[in-house]
């Protein structure tokens, strides 16, 4: 032959990549069905299999694996919350993060680069110091930084006292950091699949069958699937599922937006949050600045938000880091977060027997992924709330035992 076909190839196409998990045949019945293959759902499946040997499990996902909020967050990990209950579950989570890559056998780019939370006024300083002391009492690593000490850790911070929101101090959790969200999901998915869990994508739950107060299974676009136990892990869509099961939850679904800049030289090797100026920033391994702030104001399931919210975040970022004013915005996205009245999760049993709920992680679910999965799996396996989930029940809205983390979250929402 002659012509272009005989030309020597300069590059060989690689072999088709191995799939990380099987494309399993959907069974007619499972011991446990988990609704939602996001971070929490996958972690739950993993710990059900690993800690309890429960492997006849399906994780149903209406879209694609980890394509909801797991692909729409800012990957910040920390445990420096105010209240004992929060310290318990988030610190448990952080301890799991610290060994997760080795345990699961998958790279997750977990990086303990520290999380700094800035205070900009006398009131802000007092509130952050309260948080700092509460963390100390709970045995969570924390430091109080002067503006000069903060600048030593993050030299690009503007600590002038001539700006509108001067930095008057900061808390710093050195063990906090970031991880690569997709890799976290893939690691859990692969490990769960290896132990026999079925990951079913493109399977949307359209009904939850309840008889005599007990869950029987779920109706889906792929037909009815029977289950002894059904576990919700659907974040912003939790309310639509509990409606199918016949009870209400005190959740509101809102859009939470985030954004990345173009790839830049590494200038920031820690995570910086500010509630008063209202932005949180880190720099990903590839170099994008990753930023987020508060939710859009109104209920929405659209995964889209207003650009004025992005504009506000960027204004805040440029106030703190004048160097960012030349950066270009590359991409923005929105996730649907489920927010409870006290900004704390709802995790445990429901009015329907064998139907479990894990929701209300709101704007901060990513960091909780391992801890949430661990505690939820234990709750499902034993039909009672795990010790760390006891106070996160639906009942707290009747008893008044709220866990108010509105102020203690890194930024106000």
């Amino acid at each position: 032959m002659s012509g272009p076909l005989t030309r020597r190839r300069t590059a060989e196409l690689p072999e088709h990549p191995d799939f990380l998990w099987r494309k399993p045949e959907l069974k007619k019945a499972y011991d446990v069905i988990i609704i939602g293959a996001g971070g929490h759902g996958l972690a739950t499946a993993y710990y059900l299999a690993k800690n309890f040997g429960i492997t006849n499990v399906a994780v149903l996902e209406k879209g694609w694996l980890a394509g909801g909020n797991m692909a729409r967050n800012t990957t910040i990990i920390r445990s420096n919350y105010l209240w004992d209950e929060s310290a318990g579950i988030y610190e448990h989570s952080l301890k799991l993060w610290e060994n997760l890559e080795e345990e699961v056998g998958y790279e997750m780019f977990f990086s303990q680069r520290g999380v700094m939370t800035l205070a900009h006024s006398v009131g802000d300083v007092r509130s952050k110091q309260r948080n700092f002391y509460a963390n100390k009492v709970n045995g969570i690593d924390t430091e109080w930084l002067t503006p000069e000490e903060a600048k030593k850790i993050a030299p690009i911070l503007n600590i002038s006292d001539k700006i509108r929101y001067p930095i008057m101090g900061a808390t710093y959790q050195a063990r906090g950091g970031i991880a690569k969200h997709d890799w976290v999901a893939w690691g859990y998915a692969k490990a769960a699949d290896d132990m026999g869990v079925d990951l079913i994508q493109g399977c949307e739950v359209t009904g939850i069958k309840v008889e005599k107060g007990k869950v029987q299974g779920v109706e889906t676009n792929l037909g009815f699937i029977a289950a002894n136990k059904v576990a919700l892990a659907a974040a912003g869509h939790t309310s639509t599922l509990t409606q199918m099961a016949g009870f209400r939850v005190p959740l509101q679904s809102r859009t939470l937006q985030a954004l990345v800049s173009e790839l830049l030289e590494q200038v920031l090797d820690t995570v910086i949050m500010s509630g008063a100026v209202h932005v949180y920033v880190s720099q990903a391994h590839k170099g994008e600045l990753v930023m987020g702030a508060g939710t859009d104001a109104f209920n929405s399931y659209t995964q889209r938000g207003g650009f004025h919210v992005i504009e506000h975040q960027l204004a805040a970022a440029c106030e703190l880091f004048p160097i960012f004013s030349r950066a270009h915005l590359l991409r923005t996205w929105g996730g649907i977060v489920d927010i409870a009245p006290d900004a704390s999760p709802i995790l445990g049993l429901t009015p329907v027997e064998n139907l479990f709920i894990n929701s209300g992680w709101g704007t901060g679910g990513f960091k909780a992924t391992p801890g949430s999965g661990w505690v939820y799996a234990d709750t499902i396996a034993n039909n009672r709330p795990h010790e760390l989930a006891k106070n996160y029940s639906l009942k707290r809205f009747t008893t008044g035992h709220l866990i108010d983390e509105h102020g203690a979250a890194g930024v106000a929402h």
Partner: protein
Amino acid sequence: MLSIDCPWCGARDETEFHYGSQAHVSYPENPDQLSDEAWAEYIFYRDNPKGWYQERWVHTAGCRRWFNLWRNTATHQFGPSYKPFTQAPERPQ
């Protein structure tokens, strides 16, 4: 940014408004006889539908008055807005 139809001022940018959550949630009639469950319902539980929703807004940077409207939470499509204490329009199709 949403363009919200204030029943007094007409369509204005979302940034002029604040959100007031679900509309038509009345204060309980006999608060002294209310159970803890009923108080929880009144204080903490609000509908959270994916679809049409009746909600309250206040035109903070305009006439500063409250009003209600229909909005679709799955599409951001607006139905009619209406003044308080007036008959609510039918749920849009």
